[in-house]
């Protein structure tokens, strides 16, 4: 992981993606690329399809049209049963944490490692302790998800998402429901993970502070037109986007900065 040259091919390429639930189109014709080691956020109003886009990107839903490529390889064109190579390079943190409630936190993290390869028991213990330490949950290996708070579940969720040292980390609303300090720690963690693990990080979030803190680029999904509203650096979009809905969103509806001349 530390000696790989940065790829010139986009890490993720989304081409002409249309997402729909039956006849109801959620978003049409999305086109964007995500670079290697980029922190990319997907933003938009509630219900615009951010989480749906994430589900399409990790293969839980199939697109109506268009394709998603990872390192130039077609993901959506691959049969779902042959996607294991793609899937093993993903780490996903779900909105609620989605920890397996019948397993302890330690088992939640060790199970993916045990099921995908043979890992010595002592290494496994060290890895579990390390992943939990990264999210500030050192010593919670033997706790069940029902014994910890909502914020801790989220952090355990990210520790589990990192279990297999993924190339691409998908985080669904990581900051929602966290106190400011935990939220800040999350931001730190994400930045450090990008630097240390060389992961590409894709985040669905509403947390403006986090977006401006950590995001390299943001994709705005426009709920009014069901299309891609804007793509670019969030600070730039906030002040200079041609789309008023984007400026309104990134300024929390308080100050509508006039469009650039």
């Amino acid at each position: 992981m530390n000696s790989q040259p940065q790829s010139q091919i986009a890490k993720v390429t989304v081409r002409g993606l249309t997402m729909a639930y039956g006849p109801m189109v959620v978003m049409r014709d999305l086109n964007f690329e995500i670079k290697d080691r980029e922190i990319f956020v997907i933003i938009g109003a509630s219900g615009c399809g951010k989480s749906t886009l994430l589900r399409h990107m990790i293969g839980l839903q199939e697109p109506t049209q268009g394709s998603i490529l990872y390192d130039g390889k077609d993901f959506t064109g691959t049969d779902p049963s042959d996607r294991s190579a793609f899937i093993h390079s993903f780490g996903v943190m779900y909105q609620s944490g989605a920890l397996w409630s019948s397993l302890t936190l330690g088992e939640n993290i060790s199970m993916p490692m045990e099921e995908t390869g043979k890992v010595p028991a002592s290494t496994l213990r060290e890895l579990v302790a390390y992943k939990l330490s990264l999210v500030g949950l050192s010593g919670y290996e033997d706790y069940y998800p029902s014994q910890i708070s909502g914020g801790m579940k989220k952090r355990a969720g990210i520790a589990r998402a990192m279990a297999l040292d993924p190339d691409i980390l998908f985080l669904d609303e990581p900051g929602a429901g966290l106190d400011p300090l935990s939220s800040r720690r999350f931001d730190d963690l994400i930045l450090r993970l990008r630097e240390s693990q060389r992961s590409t990080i894709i985040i669905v979030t509403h947390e403006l502070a986090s977006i401006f803190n950590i995001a390299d680029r943001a994709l705005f999904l426009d709920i009014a037109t069901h299309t891609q509203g804007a793509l670019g650096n969030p600070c730039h979009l906030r002040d200079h986007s041609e789309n008023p809905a984007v400026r309104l969103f990134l300024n929390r509806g308080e100050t509508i900065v006039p469009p650039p001349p």
Partner: protein
Amino acid sequence: MTTEVLQRPPLAVWTRNADECTLAVSGHWRREGPRVEVTGAPPDQFPAHYETGGLGDYDSTLPAYLLACLQAIIDAAGDKSKRPVLGDLPDNLRGLLELALAVPEEGGNNLNPPPDKEIAKLGAESINVWKSAQELVDFIGQAVLSFGRMLTGRAHFRPTDFWHTLQECGIEALPIVSLISFLMGVILAFVGNVQLSNFGANLFVADIVCISMVREMGVVMTAVIMSGRTGAAFAALLGSMKANEEIDALRTFGFNPFDFLVLPRLLALVLMMPILTVYANIVGILGGMLVGYFVHIQPALYWTETIHSVDLTALSLGVFKSVFFGAAIAVCGCMQGMGAGNSSSGVGQATTRAVVAAITSVIVIDSIFAVIFTLLDI
């Protein structure tokens, strides 16, 4: 790459010069690669220098190993505020270790630490058993109070909920009750016929089937079916509602969750159980009659024998018991559901406990009635 990994196994070499200690790490550190080869004993002090010149490719295995070593030194020193110098490490490794060694915000906030000693587990389990007994008494008490509130018009629940539950407990249960009762009648008739035909008294198959079904088998089998079907459904539904905080939401609107959720289910099952029992008795007798036809007992004769075999008292015994069975099943299902843990596994456990508790209580209640009826000579 696998060959390369095997060629350069992960190495950790601890060396001590004067008062300083150095850790040299080299090779490929991979989760699924060979085990780490450690040379020299990890010291009781933090390494002053790190050598990473021969370090190849690595994943989380390397920072995990370093963290385990540093943590062991911190724990041995007994001073949690002690922080190692990580200066020589590459930036990315240093960043990760600094983050992992940062004191968590909730340090000391160990809510409900799990009991680690066997005796503590036994104690916790004993207290749980006592608490469960108290909860059962409390729940039955609440059920009685809730019923009282209903009689005085103070209990509030949605009538549609009640009618819907009535439908679920009643007409929707008919297919399975029919099948099981019919087969019970068939089995009783077959077994009875094998024995009675030895004495040329196979007409009395009708008596065996009718008395067994009406007094015991009809009501007990219906109760077992309803425990597995309806009691489990009550526990799963209420358990899911609890996990989703829907029950708390009812409370915040001032609704009594007991009146709102438990009472309609209790009433529905208590009302439906006698009807299902009578239905099960009839279907069971018809099953026996079918077997009787095949062993040359004319249906008219079978029917006459059936009618003469039981009186109103015997008929009413099963129906009487069914009311208690219905109440027991509803109480077990609703109580386990309302007391479920706030997780998906909690709901599963509640459902299992509800079925086991319902069937057990049905058998216990039936045994008590058997003793009482024998004493009363009925």
